[in-house]
């Protein structure tokens, strides 16, 4: 599929503070992007993981590489689908169960591209962007292990 004539607007933010999904979607649609379809994904901190009750989830990242790798993922999505805009916000620091952790928004002229690109960005973010989660539960702390199922989801995109 050929991309649109204009390069897509891509924004990436890594921040401690919470975000407002309405504001993020409005920002995504500003300018020439309000046309066709928008797909968004919001991820929240789980209340329990592998049967442990999570009290605090702490996110570490690699400043600089994080932003660059997410931008590269979004640009890769834009070579596969005709995107008007893509935006990613990811929180770092100490979060609580139920907190918003990540937001991905994609605008395209067609819904199929918007759905696919949004999922592609999330799948690749989970396996390529340098974030690490540490859970604090019931007086103990441990680093979350990478999941095979996440790698398998990202690998699906290699076929298409």
């Amino acid at each position: 599929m050929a991309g649109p004539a204009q390069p897509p607007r891509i924004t990436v933010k890594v921040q401690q503070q919470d975000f407002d999904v309405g504001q993020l979607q409005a920002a995504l649609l500003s300018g020439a992007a309000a046309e066709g379809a928008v797909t968004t994904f919001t991820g929240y901190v789980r209340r329990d993981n592998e049967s442990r009750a999570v009290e605090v989830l702490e996110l570490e990242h690699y400043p600089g590489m994080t932003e660059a790798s997410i931008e590269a993922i979004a640009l890769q999505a834009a070579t596969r689908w005709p995107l008007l805009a893509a935006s990613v916000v990811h929180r770092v620091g100490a979060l609580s169960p139920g907190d918003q952790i990540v937001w991905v928004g994609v605008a395209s002229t067609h819904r199929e591209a918007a759905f696919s690109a949004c999922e592609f960005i999330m799948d690749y973010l989970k396996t390529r962007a340098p974030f690490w989660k540490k859970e604090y539960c019931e007086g103990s702390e441990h680093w979350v292990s990478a999941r095979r199922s996440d790698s398998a989801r990202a690998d699906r995109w290699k076929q298409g």
Partner: protein
Amino acid sequence: MLKVLFFARVREQLGCASLDYDWPEGGLDLDALQARLCAERGDSWCEVLGQDNIIRAVNQVVAMDNRVLCDGDEVAFFPPVTGG
């Protein structure tokens, strides 16, 4: 001088977030840097950096294979990522 960074579980296991590594005469590649850190800092470093799933990045790009380093490069060692 190389800037060497460690993240997450690797950082905690080493008790080190970053170090400056003097650029040696004759240069260095990624495997050689890892071998030197292992030889110079002892068994615990060997064990941590030798873990199968360790990921290496050079100048903030993941290096799947060994590669030549240049003076001034930033090298990072970290575990598989778990964001999103």
